[in-house]
């Protein structure tokens, strides 16, 4: 237990306060509802809790028990122990938001390091201190664009290759605005859809959002799209997989105005979907319009270089209803993880891990597409994820794989009815050639069983 008071101390304190019992401090609470009898499980000691929590955790099958080919926005990568060694420092994880810069330079400089790495990786000019995750970073891009045109442009064009959760989140966020979201209703096909998106862009368009690599793993050249977007004065946002940028041309080179990302691949455990990291970077002309915390460089009264939260006057605690976003927290500790990971891997390491993912995914794609009944839906180029047409139900195939210790790919039919029997397969540096060959053997075996059943 974490309450240190002895009975004697409690009595002395009550005397100072001038009441007889602790209960007397709650006279303002309506008596009829005071001190309800809460039906919660009985308290356990720490030792018992540890054992119970181990049992609950053991009821899961983790990606350390299973071979994982599942991605769809969250990826199983190797996390060097250095990352958690830093994260476990109480000075970082038990600190509050660095509102008092004199005693928070650790967090502030780490965020400044983070902002620097994000701009280097994305090819953009400025980054904020992070948003909640990949989905909310996209939602904040919409808010920035809407505010940029002072509400005079109402259309936002979304690619259907943008993660379904991101699109759904953007829709939720905009229930109370005049923004019309369009572009992602049509059926998807293997060919890049930039032409379709371009046809939707007009003078009322505030923002176009695409993903790179997209939800299906495809890498598309968005420079033509960027030209069309800029020709009508609108903005282009590109949601990226940050780890892929170890290998791929950064979206800044395509003329992106905003780059967002799910930062999870950068050293953050899968942890059943969170906490993750919303990366948000943009061009310097939008620096002052970007929501969220920002750390800036300055000097102290002793002449030393130092860091401080800056442009706070645009945030909710000052601007209240006139703020562009209600965002308050960032994902500071998770941004720290990404900072440690990215700097540890550095120039060579990030390139190596990105290439490993690329080569292994291409090997897997080639092998799987050679299985009778299977073919590759995704066209080249792709990064570490690709879509395969399957001979039958993805759910049934995955059940078969699971029995053999393999976590199969994502069933795209859940989100795209036209992609029934299509599986999204992710491969990372964690998958050995042996794992991939085993997957291929099982898919072949399962297909043979199915055919013989027919």
């Amino acid at each position, binding site marked *: 237990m974490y*309450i*240190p008071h002895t009975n004697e101390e409690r009595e002395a304190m009550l005397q*100072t306060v001038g*009441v007889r019992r602790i209960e007397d401090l709650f006279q*303002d609470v309506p008596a009829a509802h005071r001190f309800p009898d809460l039906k919660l499980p009985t308290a356990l000691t720490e030792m018992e809790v*540890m054992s119970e*929590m181990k049992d609950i955790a*053991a009821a*899961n*099958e*983790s*990606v*350390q028990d299973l071979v994982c080919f599942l991605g769809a*926005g969250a990826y*199983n990568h190797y996390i060097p122990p*250095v990352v958690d060694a830093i994260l476990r*420092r*109480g*000075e970082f994880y038990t*600190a509050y*938001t660095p509102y*008092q810069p*004199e*005693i*928070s*330079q650790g967090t502030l*400089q780490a965020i400044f390091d983070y902002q620097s790495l994000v701009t*280097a990786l994305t090819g953009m000019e400025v980054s904020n201190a992070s948003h*909640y995750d990949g*989905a909310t970073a996209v939602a904040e891009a919409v808010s920035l664009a809407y505010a940029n045109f002072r509400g005079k442009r109402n259309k936002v064009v979304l690619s259907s290759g943008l993660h379904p*959760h991101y699109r759904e*989140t953007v829709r*939720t*966020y905009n229930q*109370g*605005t005049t923004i019309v979201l369009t572009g992602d209703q049509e059926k998807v096909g293997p060919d890049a859809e930039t032409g379709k998106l371009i046809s939707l862009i007009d003078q009322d368009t505030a923002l176009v959002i695409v993903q790179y690599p997209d939800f299906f793993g495809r890498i598309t050249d968005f420079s033509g799209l960027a030209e069309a977007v800029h020709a009508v004065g609108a903005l282009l946002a590109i949601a990226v997989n940050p780890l892929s940028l170890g*290998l791929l*041309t950064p979206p800044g080179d395509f003329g992106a105005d905003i780059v967002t990302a799910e930062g999870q691949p950068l050293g953050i455990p*899968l*942890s059943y979907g*969170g*906490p993750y990291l919303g990366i948000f970077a943009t061009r310097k002309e939008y620096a002052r319009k970007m929501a969220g915390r920002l750390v800036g460089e300055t000097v102290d*009264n*002793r002449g030393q270089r130092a860091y*401080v939260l*800056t442009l706070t006057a645009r945030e*909710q605690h000052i601007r209240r209803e006139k703020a562009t*976003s*209600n965002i308050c*927290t960032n994902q*500071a500790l*998770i941004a720290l993880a990404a900072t440690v990971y990215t*700097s*540890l891997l550095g120039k060579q*390491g990030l390139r190596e891990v990105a290439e490993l993912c690329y*080569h292994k995914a*291409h090997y897997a794609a080639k092998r799987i597409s050679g299985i009778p009944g299977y073919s590759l839906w995704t066209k*080249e*180029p792709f990064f570490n994820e690709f879509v395969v047409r399957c001979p039958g139900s993805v759910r049934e195939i995955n059940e078969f794989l699971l029995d053999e210790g393999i976590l199969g790919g994502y069933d795209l039919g859940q989100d795209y009815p036209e992609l029934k029997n299509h599986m999204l397969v992710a491969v990372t540096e964690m998958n*050995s050639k042996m794992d991939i060959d085993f997957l291929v053997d099982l898919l072949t075996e399962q297909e043979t069983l199915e055919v013989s059943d027919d």
Partner: protein
Amino acid sequence: MTEPLLCEMSVTGRRGLRYPEPDVPKAELPGKFTRDDLPLPEIHEVDIVRHFTRLSQLNYAIDLGMYPLGSCTMKYNPKVNEEVARLTGFAYTHPMQPIETVQGNLLLMYELQEWLKEIGGFAGVTLQPAAGAQGELAGVLIMRAYHASRGDSKRDKILIPDSAHGTNPATSAMSGLRVVQLSSDVHGNVDLEALKRECDDSLAGLMLTNPNTLGLFDENVEEITRLVHAAGGLVYGDGANMNALLGIVRPGDLGIDILHFNLHKTFSTPHGGGGPGSGPVGVSAALVDYLPSPVVGIIEEAEEELPPLYGFHNPSKSIGRVKSFWGQFGMMVRAYTYMRVHGAEGLRKVSEYAVLNANYLMAKMKGTYHLPYDRVCMHEFVLEGGWAEAPGVHALDIAKRMMDYGLHPPTNYFPLIVHEALMIEPTETESKQSLDYFVEIMIKIAEEAHTDPELLYSAPHKTPVGRLDEVKAAKELVLCCGVSPIS
């Protein structure tokens, strides 16, 4: 010595981690999509570890001392929580795994939903929101969707007391509602007459923080919720201050329709230097169908030997999802562990001692600092950081001077309705000795303010850096390494 930035530590050819050679044939790289230059630093593992360790030593933290930030509930973050969240079964499960393979996670989420329902007096809970502010957004969108589904589309007004957190009006504006500010009365409560004047058929709802940001429990709360309901509105409760209410009163019993919890305040998950938070939302029976999708439920009931099968379901009139996947799961594991260690009795004790600690500090300090609302407080209270006899001294100076004595300052200049506010929340995890040290230092600083105010103006003196030029930071904007300022 100033700690260098990562970009300044780079030496060409150094590396921190090596990967194996590919065990598969290399594929052809993607031509024009292959990056020429990856301008990341090149640093050895040793230097990385030293850099971040040295940075950590420039921080204040709960693990170093008392952190009396009002409204932030900086209680101790138990170590067992950290250990549990890193168990392989939790930390290494993929969010898209088939539900049959993650029954432990789903059971934990289901139970946590049930416990929060019980603690808050609600019929439904979503764990999805990433933080308090996002919980507010979900809550206000639920409010909006509820009125809209009843064809009650003219309700666009939301009432927010002048003592509220800034996220309340910001969230309401994001949700397309019109914000009307409500004044506080002389006792620090919602002004009932002002409320009555605004209770008309355009009222969507009221956002209420109770205890409010003065740390006062509004004893008219039932009258407030009755008035809003009678006008057809809903009452949103800002649960930032739940640390005063565990086992003391259930907000749902008082007529609160929607409330967000802050797992990172009330339920001890670490603040992490500014996040991740976690902001589950509880709602009354009439609003369960509007919760963000999906929520965790029982898909197949337990049978004889078999446990129930947990899974996801989408509420019928859901506002949709507010983020990717299922929420800040790692924070849920920590909060679950915390609640399991406490049980009902332990949680009530948390709030009782949080309130005792605050009242103790208030009693010891009110002779030295002006207390604008002199009533029994809940888990926090607000003092004025200034004296007529020491006209040059401001709350900021007191805050900065505290650092020289190894203390983190309280929240200052909030709430906005108190002049030179110092908002103090000790939490239940501080001992009497720690509180007494705090009082001793605060009294000493008050003396210094009168006898040697220069000590305060120039504070802090003993910290790694002194007061910062914040104007320069904003005007000559430098947000990353090695670039010229953005004007």
